[in-house]
């Protein structure tokens, strides 16, 4: 216990230890420490994209896995995502400046007729935590709302959420419209919500059903890697 109680001086750690410590700090939701870690790595000449992908997205992957496995719950995940956001705030302008590849952009909202947004909000927060750009369309979205926003924002992913068994069939309306307009393949379509399941996702022609926010993040990453047809980002 005693040596664990010694304060860790981030700037005294070597790169590898620091990345490891930042992943731990992210897990513990320590925002200030994450911000400090990001600044130290920048000072040491790290590229913003490497900082984003290694300690931050890497750390959030562990958070996501433990959330999926029922070890962490929403409050801890929100804390971690909040710490991640602190780091992202510093990195974002630098990422734009350096023209670094983005992790991905998602428009998300609950479908027409559905006003239950807490699940959608959690997905948005966790996706943001994982480095995705989120355009939150709020509740009660008609097909036009999704498609206009996706086109305007140049989104990679369209995310639809429904809590009601009476509203979930609307997801198919959105996907069918995309097919009619010949734009279905332009986007990754992810669906989620309490009454949905994998069969439903397949039946309506979505790319994937995501059981929870952690699965949504993992699925989005997998599909983005496929979309870019490149291996997951390496240094």
């Amino acid at each position, binding site marked *: 216990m005693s040596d664990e109680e010694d304060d860790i001086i981030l700037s005294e750690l070597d790169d590898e230890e620091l990345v490891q410590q930042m992943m731990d700090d992210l897990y513990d939701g320590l925002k200030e420490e994450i911000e400090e870690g990001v600044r130290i790595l920048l000072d040491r000449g790290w590229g913003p994209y490497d900082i984003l992908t290694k300690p931050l997205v890497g750390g959030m992957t562990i958070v996501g896995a433990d959330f999926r496995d029922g070890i962490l719950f929403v409050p801890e995940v929100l804390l971690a995502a909040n710490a991640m956001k602190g780091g992202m705030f510093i990195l974002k302008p630098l990422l734009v400046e350096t023209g670094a590849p983005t992790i991905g952009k998602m428009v998300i909202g609950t479908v027409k007729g559905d006003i239950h947004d807490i699940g959608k909000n959690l997905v948005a927060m966790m996706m943001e935590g994982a480095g995705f750009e989120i355009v939150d369309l709020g509740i009660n979205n008609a097909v036009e709302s999704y498609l206009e926003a996706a086109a305007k924002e140049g989104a990679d992913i369209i995310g639809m959420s429904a809590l009601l068994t009476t*509203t979930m069939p609307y997801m198919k309306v959105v996907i069918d419209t995309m097919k009619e307009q010949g734009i279905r393949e332009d986007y990754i379509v992810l669906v989620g919500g309490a*009454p949905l399941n994998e069969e439903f996702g397949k039946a309506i022609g979505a790319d994937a059903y995501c059981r929870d926010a952690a699965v949504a993040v993992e699925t989005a990453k997998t599909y983005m890697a496929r979309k870019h047809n490149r291996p997951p980002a390496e240094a």
Partner: protein
Amino acid sequence: MTNALSRLLETRDWLMADGATGTNLFNMGLSSGDAPEMWNEEHPDRIKKLYSLAVDAGSDLFLTNSFGGNASRLKLHGAEKRAGELSRISAELGRDVADKAGRPVVVAGSVGPTGEIMAPMGPLTHELAVEIFHEQAEGLKAGGADVLWLETISAPEEYRAAAEAFKLADMPWCGTMSFDTAGRTMMGVTSEAMVKMVEKLENPPIAYGANCGVGASDLLRTVLGFSASGVERPIIAKGNAGIPKYEDGHIHYDGTPDLMAEYAIMARDCGATIIGGCCGTMAEHLEKMHEALESRPRGPRPTLEQITEKLGGFSSASDGTGDDANAVPARKSRRRRG
């Protein structure tokens, strides 16, 4: 304390609550996306019909059509200023139906979650949450609700805020949480943790328990978790009629009336005193449940194996209680905090 629910609990060793509100209202023509609370004003006849369905099926208490009747939820429909009024009407309609029942029937003023995540993680402060719940509580009280009925809560902070608000309104209450994530609430609360939280409240509920969640099996596992605590406070079980399935373009819940009857008996054997249904539970389910509760004898407390045998499997291997409570190693922070 004298209120209709406590009086019933003094003379009866089980009570039957009602079933689904949303599923029934959709069947009556509610469009998804509309606030069901608007119907209190627009279609009072249909809301009374909803209440009567439960009373006619033998329910000793029913919940008012005010689940989303708080300012935070009504804001989504531009009706945040009408929380008190719409809640009051929902209770008035309930009063009318209950008083004509010819036997004691409790009007329980439904109070659902705000839908917001509470501070510091989210935007909703404790003070504001208390204010929102208090406003709705006063409306339900003015409309003649016998007790208030908090339901589908995930966060202990929100449960506590409601308890405080109900004290301000000087109303007896019941409160259930929804255990839908690996046997815990979305915010990670286990059945064990809920009992501890409830027993620490300055203004504890008459009864506490679980509603909604995943399926009947999961809900009973949660009830077993409550009764294992040995606390005397009556337990509420309000489970869904199975799990919604999507088939050939429409949705149905896979819990049959017979299965729900089995669930009701087992809920009582698990230690629940107030037994009802939630989503998908229609009048035909309630009738079977009532018949079973009336006619069948009590049995020993069922084991987890017996629950899965009769009602189907659990959604997760563990629910974080009992021997499992310490099974998951908490990841150790390497950093000194504060």
